[in-house]
């Protein structure tokens, strides 16, 4: 019973640099249902941030350049919205929180004003009312003594508290979509768990749809109903979290799962995927994962695989799915993840 609130169709995005064209995003299609959490996972530099920042048009163009593709928000094609039109959407319809809470708040402006300026931009209310709203929001994200917090500067808060403030800024105008770009990467483990918990709670309460970017599969397990696995500017596999975790079909996904520590694992050494992601200046012919793939076949280095549809919207781009390829059992998650929350049934 869900509706697509956001859809990206075959998005291509490049950077024109002196050294040449960096093809950061090379044909990405994904969608976000109302009220769900979608996780985008993948190694550093695979284009996760560029993808979501392109949706909000936060990537400076130039050097960035939208080559082709469509972005549809609430049934409206926003691909070619001007900056002026985007300003109306940002903050009120879609928001973003960033990786590093230490640098994403203005050091010389009080927390309170950093929250109210967004409200005042989007809503026609008095500064006093806005202040009231900001204080309520600070309380909601778990800032003790929010009246006092309102008057503080960012450096007077710890990293975790600052990320809470960022969440308050992002959600104060009650947007439909929240992009959380590695919101916990810069935080310690306990704080990570608290922040994820907070995002989950507020998402329920405010009925926000969330896109969470991470390279930590533990985060996926805690938050997301669906996952998109990105590699070198493309989505190689996407589906329900439990399908991705227990029945991965792409060797890259399987490799990511294998390189993830699990509770109670003692004797087994952690495996990692050998090699590094390809150069986005000149992406290789064929499947971009082929040079690192354990199951690489001749065809893989020649032609890019087509996307294959499996059950529950599970999609994978890999030649192993081809009927002519030798059947392989890819290792997935054996044990249940200790931190895993019950996954919702169906889409």
């Amino acid at each position, binding site marked *: 019973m869900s509706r697509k609130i956001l859809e990206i169709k075959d998005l291509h995005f490049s950077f024109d640099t002196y050294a040449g064209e960096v093809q950061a995003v090379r044909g990405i299609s994904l969608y976000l249902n109302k009220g769900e959490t979608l996780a985008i996972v993948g190694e550093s530099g695979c284009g996760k941030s560029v993808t979501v920042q392109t949706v909000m048009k936060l990537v400076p163009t130039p050097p960035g350049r939208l080559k082709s593709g469509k972005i549809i928000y609430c049934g409206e094609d926003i691909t070619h919205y001007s*900056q002026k039109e985007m300003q109306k959407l940002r903050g009120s319809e879609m*928001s973003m929180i960033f990786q590093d809470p230490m*640098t994403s708040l203005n*050091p*010389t402006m009080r927390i309170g004003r950093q929250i109210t300026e967004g409200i005042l*931009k989007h809503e026609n209310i008095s500064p006093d009312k806005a202040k009231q709203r900001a204080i309520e929001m600070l309380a909601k994200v778990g800032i003790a003594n929010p009246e006092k917090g309102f008057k503080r500067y960012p450096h*007077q808060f710890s990293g975790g508290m600052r990320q809470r403030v960022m969440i308050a*800024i*992002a959600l104060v105008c009650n947007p439909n979509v929240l992009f959380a770009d590695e919101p916990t990467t810069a935080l310690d483990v306990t704080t990570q768990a608290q922040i994820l918990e907070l995002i989950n709670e507020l998402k329920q309460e405010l009925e926000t749809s969330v896109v969470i970017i991470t390279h930590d599969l533990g985060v996926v397990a805690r938050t997301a109903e669906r996952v998109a696995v990105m590699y070198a500017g493309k989505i190689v596999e996407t589906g329900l979290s439990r399908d991705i975790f227990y029945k991965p079909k792409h060797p890259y996904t399987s490799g990511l799962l294998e390189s993830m520590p699990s509770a109670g694992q003692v004797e087994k050494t952690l495996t990692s995927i050998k090699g590094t992601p390809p150069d986005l200046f000149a992406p290789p012919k064929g499947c971009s994962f082929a040079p690192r793939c354990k199951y690489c076949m001749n065809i893989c280095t020649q032609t890019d695989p087509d996307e294959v549809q499996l059950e529950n919207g599970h999609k994978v781009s890999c030649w192993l799915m081809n009927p002519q390829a030798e059947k392989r059992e890819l290792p997935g998650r054996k044990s249940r993840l200790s931190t895993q929350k019950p996954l919702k049934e169906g889409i």
Partner: protein
Amino acid sequence: MVRYILKRLVISIITIWLLATVTFFLLRTLPGNPFQTEKLLTVEMQERMMSYYGLDRPLMEQYFTYMKNLLQGNFGYSLKYTNRTVNSIIKSTFPVSAELGLRSLAVALPIGLALGVASARKRGKIIDYICVVIAVIGVSIPSFIMGTFLQYIFAIKLKLLPVSQWKTAAHTILPTVALALSLMATLTRVMRASMLEVTMQDYIKTARAKGLGEGRITWSHQVRNAMIPILTMLGPMVASVLMGTFVIEKIFAIPGLGQHFVNSITGLDYTMTMGLTVFYGIFLVTANFIVDILYGLVDPRIRLAK
């Protein structure tokens, strides 16, 4: 806060003392004596002058005498201007230099910062190029060329303003402009770089993600943060500008303090050089102290760390 100010005061006094001591002994290592250059004096007369000013005493004794006078704020007699104390010379010439300096700063600061902001906002556009060209011209053309150029155009050709001297308000315009141009160029350059630096910061992206307009982002998020490096250079800049500029004062025949810095050294006027150095030192230390307080106003991280 009181503790902080006391600490700063003690450090300042030590700094000034070190400055005075080092200058004192360095000056005496220069070859020759203050009276040598005056050709009319015989060697015998030179020696009489030396003993009149106490310069024939042992060096350490001279040093202690000087320090004792210095503690009372007494810089002593100039060795070149007969019967004039260094204090009285500073008193009569410093106000002129300070006035010229303040006028130039009043012109250069707002314009320089505004140009810096404008060119950073329109990076790569025509306005940016114009500002960069102005900045490069201002930095690379020496003020004696700029000064004479202004004199030639506005005083000699157009006959709009007096060529030189320091009498009426009209006299102040050309030297003010000549000095302001180079200050403005520096300020524009630093402000532009600083604004561009701030543009790359994550919190600017946050501001954009809130839906704020570009104008709003510049004024409430960028400018204040971009001012921090400007404040750093403002202390030394204000101090040096108020102390007078030798070249401008020479070209425009302005009776300021700047010329004495150069003349006293070439003439080995020990007391004058010492007096000016210590005066400059005190001024610079004070300027930096004020800047540090301003820092706290702009940047809350520094304010609370004290």
